[in-house]
């Protein structure tokens, strides 16, 4: 086995070569046209795009399709690659949804750590007033990259959960389009590389929102981010097509829509948004990219001399914000709906009670997904948008509280009268509810336009959306990793370390949220490298930093737990949680072909209070031995 037999190595080489070829050809074309020999931003854009294609060719994500064009059949093969150790399949193109799910998951955790370290770096700087060890430009770059890397981490994490879990939970053998699934994962890698490398090519200073015209004048790193996000968005689109088709066509016999595990409802809702809204951020970022590289004036009110000479109209600054938020608000629900699905999925298992109001919870996800399209203007209350428009956007925004409330009430009603046990996954579910509650309750004050005119762009908002993201994604994602860890690895995680992780992270996060809201209300703005000591927020800033580092440390405990337990944890039984879900009725770790025969659904998913009832019947060959 050589190093080049690993797809990812070939992919990285392909990206490097592709980028060089793209830039080289562009410069050569310039030279042939008799222009000066220099590398303009347009040449770098060509390089970036060809580099991304180089990665996909090198890694092998396009190989089967190329073979089809040449008339070669490529039957799907399962199992580890021939003639190579089985771990190598995780570093190259593999069509098993379980392998792809793990690839997504590891990439997501890696990005979380990268983005988290960036956060701790500038958090350190913000502990006291004055500039200690960062300058303004480095601060802006790190802060902006933290934001976009977290968003990438969350999108990839959503991919991890939906790809690994969806086929298992609906009793299918795999996703509908395995090759597209692999393509969807691998396109994230060149995207993430571009985002991370933006820090080394001049940086950028716009925050993840990339508002024009600041993004049009920003340094070269901006271009890397714009195109990196474009690639990651492509992954979202193809991934969601796959989820929608899989859920609609590959459910086990007898699994009507209202007998699906509730998590499947939430990934359906998420996929509908991702499939229809992602194009808008892609469009807005491409337009900024084109305005920078080609001088097309979409957003900037100042025309280039060439554009002015032909009488082109000036660009519209607010157009960017409309396009951007038309995706980026619904995107919030892309991030949190799967997490809320995990909460609803795990609560009944650890309460030994049916999910309260299953249909209400299921349809509330759909309601949030659809209503989410009508609220983007609430990010623009201060923007100078038409004054009257602030009222309808305020009303639609406030209405989202209703389906969200249905979820909260159904969760506590599920707990009520249960027989609750508190293993680590359940602790993180309860922690998620409490933190998502902070996010939820800090929302309406910023949804009412008058008070948003005060709160907009302050640290209060920073506290609000971090609570939403942690409660709606990070905590449930962690709960899911602990919960399905035995099915993935065949071993149990360490319960003591898991509880330590929880008891460090949850109080720290509470403290961080409240302190962020507090300093924001006192006048601390978002995205500033330095703050005014006259605001009287020293204590709050110090608390945020302490909390941030505690969260960081707890994540190291988490990582250590995962790695150590995967190697030498206690061997797991098939169904450690006495779950009714189909994937817990087959052995741990889950075999290559999850279900030897398609399972048949004969009951309701969450009838934990009726021990005699059966949700799913497996074929005799599928069952776990114990």
């Amino acid at each position, binding site marked *: 086995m050589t190093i080049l037999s690993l797809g990812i190595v070939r992919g990285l080489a392909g990206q490097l070569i592709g980028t060089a070829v793209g830039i080289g050809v562009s410069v050569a074309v310039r030279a042939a046209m008799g222009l000066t020999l220099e590398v303009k931003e347009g040449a770098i854009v060509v390089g970036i795009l060809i580099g991304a294609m180089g990665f996909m060719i090198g890694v092998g994500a396009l190989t089967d399709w190329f073979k089809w064009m040449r008339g070669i059949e490529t039957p799907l093969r399962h199992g580890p690659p021939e003639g190579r150790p089985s771990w190598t399949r995780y570093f190259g193109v593999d069509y098993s949804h379980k392998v792809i799910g793990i690839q997504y998951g590891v990439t997501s955790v890696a990005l979380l750590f990268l983005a988290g370290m960036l956060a701790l770096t500038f958090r350190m700087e913000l502990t006291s007033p004055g500039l200690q060890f960062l300058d*303004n430009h480095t601060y*802006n770059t790190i802060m902006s990259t933290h934001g976009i890397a977290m968003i990438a981490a969350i999108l990839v994490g959503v991919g991890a959960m939906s790809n690994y879990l969806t086929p298992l939970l609906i009793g299918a053998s795999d996703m509908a389009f395995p090759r597209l699934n692999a393509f969807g994962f691998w396109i994230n890698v060149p995207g993430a590389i571009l985002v991370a490398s933006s820090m080394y090519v001049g940086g950028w200073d716009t*925050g993840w929102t990339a*508002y024009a*015209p600041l993004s049009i*004048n920003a340094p070269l790193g901006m271009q890397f981010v714009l195109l990196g996000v474009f690639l990651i968005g492509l992954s979202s689109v193809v991934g969601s097509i796959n989820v929608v088709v899989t859920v609609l066509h590959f459910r086990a016999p007898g699994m009507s829509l209202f007998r699906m595990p509730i998590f499947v409802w939430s990934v359906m809702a998420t996929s509908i948004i991702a499939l229809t809204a992602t194009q808008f951020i892609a469009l807005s970022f491409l337009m900024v990219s084109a305005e920078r590289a080609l001088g097309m004036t979409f957003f900037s*009110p100042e025309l280039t001399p060439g554009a002015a000479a032909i009488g082109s109209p000036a*660009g519209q*600054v*607010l157009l960017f914000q409309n396009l951007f938020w038309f995706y980026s608000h619904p995107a919030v629900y892309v991030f949190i709906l799967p997490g809320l699905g995990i909460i609803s999925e795990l609560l009944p298992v650890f*309460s*030994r*009670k*049916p999910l*309260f*109001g299953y249909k*209400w919870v299921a349809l509330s996800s759909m309601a949030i997904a659809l209503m989410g399209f009508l609220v983007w203007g609430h990010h623009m209350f*201060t923007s100078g948008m038409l004054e009257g428009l602030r*009222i309808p956007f*305020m*009303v639609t925004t*406030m209405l989202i*509280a*209703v389906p969200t*409330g*249905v979820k909260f*009430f*159904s969760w506590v*009603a599920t*707990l*009520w*009268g*249960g*027989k*609750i046990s*508190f293993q680590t996954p359940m602790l993180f579910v*309860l922690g998620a*509810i*409490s933190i998502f509650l902070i996010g939820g*309750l800090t929302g*309406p*004050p910023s949804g*009412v*336009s*008058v*008070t948003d*005119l*005060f709160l*907009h*762009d302050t640290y209060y908002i920073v506290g609000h959306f971090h609570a939403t993201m942690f409660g709606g994604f990070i905590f449930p994602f962690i709960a899911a990793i602990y919960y399905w860890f035995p099915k993935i690895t065949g071993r149990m995680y360490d319960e003591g370390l898991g509880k330590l992780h929880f008891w460090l992270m949850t109080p720290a996060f509470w403290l961080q949220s409240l302190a962020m809201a507090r300093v924001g*209300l006192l*006048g601390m*703005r*978002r995205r*500033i490298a*330095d703050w*005014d000591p006259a605001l009287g927020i020293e204590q709050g800033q110090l608390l945020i930093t302490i909390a941030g580092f505690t969260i960081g440390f707890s994540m190291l405990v988490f990582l250590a737990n995962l790695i150590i337990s995967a190697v030498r944890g206690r061997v797991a039984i098939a169904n450690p949680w006495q779950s009714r879900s189909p994937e817990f009725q087959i052995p741990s770790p889950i075999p290559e072909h999850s279900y030897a025969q398609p399972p048949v659904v004969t009951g309701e998913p969450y*009838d934990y*209070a*009726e021990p005699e009832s059966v949700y799913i019947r497996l074929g005799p060959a599928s069952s776990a031995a114990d």
Partner: protein
Amino acid sequence: MRHLLAVVILIAIVTAAVGLLLGPENILPTLASEEGAYVDQLFSIYAFVIAFFFALIIVIMLYSAVVFRRKKGDDEPGANVHGNSVLEIVWSVIPLGIVLLLAGLGAVYLGDTLEAEADEMVVEVTAAQWSWRFDYPEFGVSSSELYLPNGRQVLFEFNSLDVIHSFWVPEFRLKQDIVPGITTTLRLKPTLSGSYTVRCAELCGLNHANMLTPVTVMEPAEFDAWIAAQIDSRALSPADRGKQLAELNGCVACHSSDGSPSVGPSWLALFGSEEILEDGTEVLVDEDYLLKSILDPNAQIVDGFLPNLMPKIYGDTFSQTEIDALIAYIRSLGN
């Protein structure tokens, strides 16, 4: 029933405690404008709404965690309850009513903040990376700091020379983005004399964090005296006029006059010196070089500084006399 009663009592206690804690007097800075009072009023309503829903969820969750925990050896399942449509409707309709009420109140208050008074004073605000300029057309006065009379409504008219900025004084509560290409407005009536700070609230690039300028709210008589003093200071020498222009137009945000390093070259001892440009050539800093650099900043970038930071607008925004005054000021700082 016993459980329900306990929960109701706990929710009442937690609601009261958290609600009092979240009162606007505990969490917001001093209030200094009439329009900002609507924000504080809404916050006093939020306090108890938030406290109630917080208590409702947290109390039931923690109470269940204690009372309904599984005891050792108890393998019985929980209660066989699948849902309750009446409850679902209740907890949809009540929050619906509350959020619609808040939105309605928000809409009415929003309208109130937009109301103009007859004697309002216009202040034209020009924001640029990374400076503020305030023009008082009523008096023909300009300033780089904001001075306002207490008790008179001000109509701010905002324009940006480059990227988006945002005008925010936390004590006045309301903020407004300043968007290149359009003029945005905001009305505020100061109600408390004192010193505050305008803080740019929209990320505007390199020095965004430092885009601050003082606000002084004064009693009307003091304000009139300030205006009179500004009008008197017009008969200035070219160098002093240049200094004033440099401060008003934000030149000093990037060019220091004391030799300290910044985004652009310091003006101290600049005139008459020899500078090395990006391409390695040397240039003597004289009137010609300064004029060229003001009109076309990218033409001759001094080594160690970045192009594309300084706007290329000053040929349009300054008159010839003003540019001469600026050059005279820079010359006065030279060797």
